[in-house]
């Protein structure tokens, strides 16, 4: 296919979009986007995400960040099950390449591979920067845009960079797959415990509370501290964000190690089966 034809196709697609948009804006089909109001559900979320008024005391999530409040408070169960979907994907990948990472450590005891000294030194500096940015995104998740998923995805860039610059042999001496999966499971257990923590506190006081409860509700007056004069502490949101970062970052680390394993190591396993 010639270059000229591609340019012509791109220009005609662009012109088609501009023309159709012009027709629609002139009132062709009667929708004028964007709307000037949000849905009433969104109004409730926006109004109660951080409201000190006594009228909204039992519905407010006490987090200035509406997205984090929805992810871990209003719709916490959804997020819990989405996290388990990711865990199942990791289990599937582990089942495909079983036993490969242990074989890697046995076969190659001497260090080999990797890029030059300059690249390695600069990577060592950059890893610290990436980790601190990711942690800052996570720990301020209830105050500013950010949270567990964002921080975890940012930190997951670090093992990728380490594997590429230091080679998989050196990296699997630092973190093995089983260690990464263990840390990821600790994150999941932490998320499960954070879901029950208010219930545990209430039972210790001889009372009952809801699962996934963050702030005091009408029939259960227990909750984690969330607002002390000028400081916003976040309640359970801070715990959820921290453990979710652990889960996302180390889950991806395990997948990266399995994905980048050298072909000659994996081929032996496949041939051994047949």
């Amino acid at each position, binding site marked *: 296919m010639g270059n000229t034809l591609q340019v012509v196709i791109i220009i005609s697609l662009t012109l088609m*979009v501009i023309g159709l948009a012009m027709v629609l*804006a002139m009132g062709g089909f009667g929708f004028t986007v964007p709307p000037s109001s949000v849905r009433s559900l969104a109004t409730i979320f926006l*109004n109660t995400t951080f409201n000190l008024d006594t009228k909204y005391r039992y519905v407010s999530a006490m987090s200035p960040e*509406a997205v984090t409040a929805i992810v871990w408070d209003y719709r916490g169960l959804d997020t819990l099950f989405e996290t388990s*979907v990711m865990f199942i994907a990791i289990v599937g990948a582990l089942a495909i390449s079983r036993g490969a990472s242990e074989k890697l450590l046995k076969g190659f005891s001497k260090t080999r591979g990797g890029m030059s000294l300059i690249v390695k030194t600069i990577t060592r500096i950059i890893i610290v920067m990436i980790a601190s940015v990711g942690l800052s995104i996570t720990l301020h998740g209830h105050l500013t845009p950010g949270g567990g998923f964002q921080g975890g995805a940012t930190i997951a860039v670090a093992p990728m960079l380490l594997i590429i610059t230091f080679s998989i042999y050196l990296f699997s001496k630092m973190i093995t797959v089983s260690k990464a999966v263990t840390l990821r499971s600790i994150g999941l257990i932490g998320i499960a415990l954070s879901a029950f923590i208010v219930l545990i506190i209430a039972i210790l006081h001889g009372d009952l509370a809801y699962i996934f409860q963050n702030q005091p509700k009408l029939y259960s007056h227990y909750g984690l501290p969330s607002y002390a004069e000028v400081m916003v502490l976040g309640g359970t949101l801070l715990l959820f964000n921290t453990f979710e970062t652990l889960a*996302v970052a180390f889950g991806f680390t395990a997948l990266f190690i399995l994905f980048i394993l050298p072909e000659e190591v994996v081929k032996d396993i496949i041939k051994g089966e047949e």
Partner: protein
Amino acid sequence: MEVEPFLFNIVVLSLFVNIAMSLYGVFVRPSLIKKIISLTIFSDTINTLVIVVGFRHAIPNPIPPVVIEIPPPPQYLRQFVLQAVDPLPQALVLTAIVIGLAVLLFLMFTTLQIYRIYGTTDVRKISRLRG
């Protein structure tokens, strides 16, 4: 003709065109890797459409759904509800992106396994092979 709806329509319609092209890539192109690339474009475009649903037009301008005055006075909160965009689609897309990456990694593992066993990533050759 108002200019702002026109410019916003361009955004929505180009997302539709992107959906069409990525579906062509998923269905027609023979290489499994090209199918995966098209699938990422498809899911990203759908996510963007969901975000577009939550966008709004506000006077003087829309703001992200983050309260920046602590403690918020009632006057500020009233203005915040009138200006902030819908946070619910953002919360749903946020998890969808990260989970999508994990599921896509699983697809890549399967593609790699197919290449290890059959020695090709071309679906036409794979369908001809037996065993």
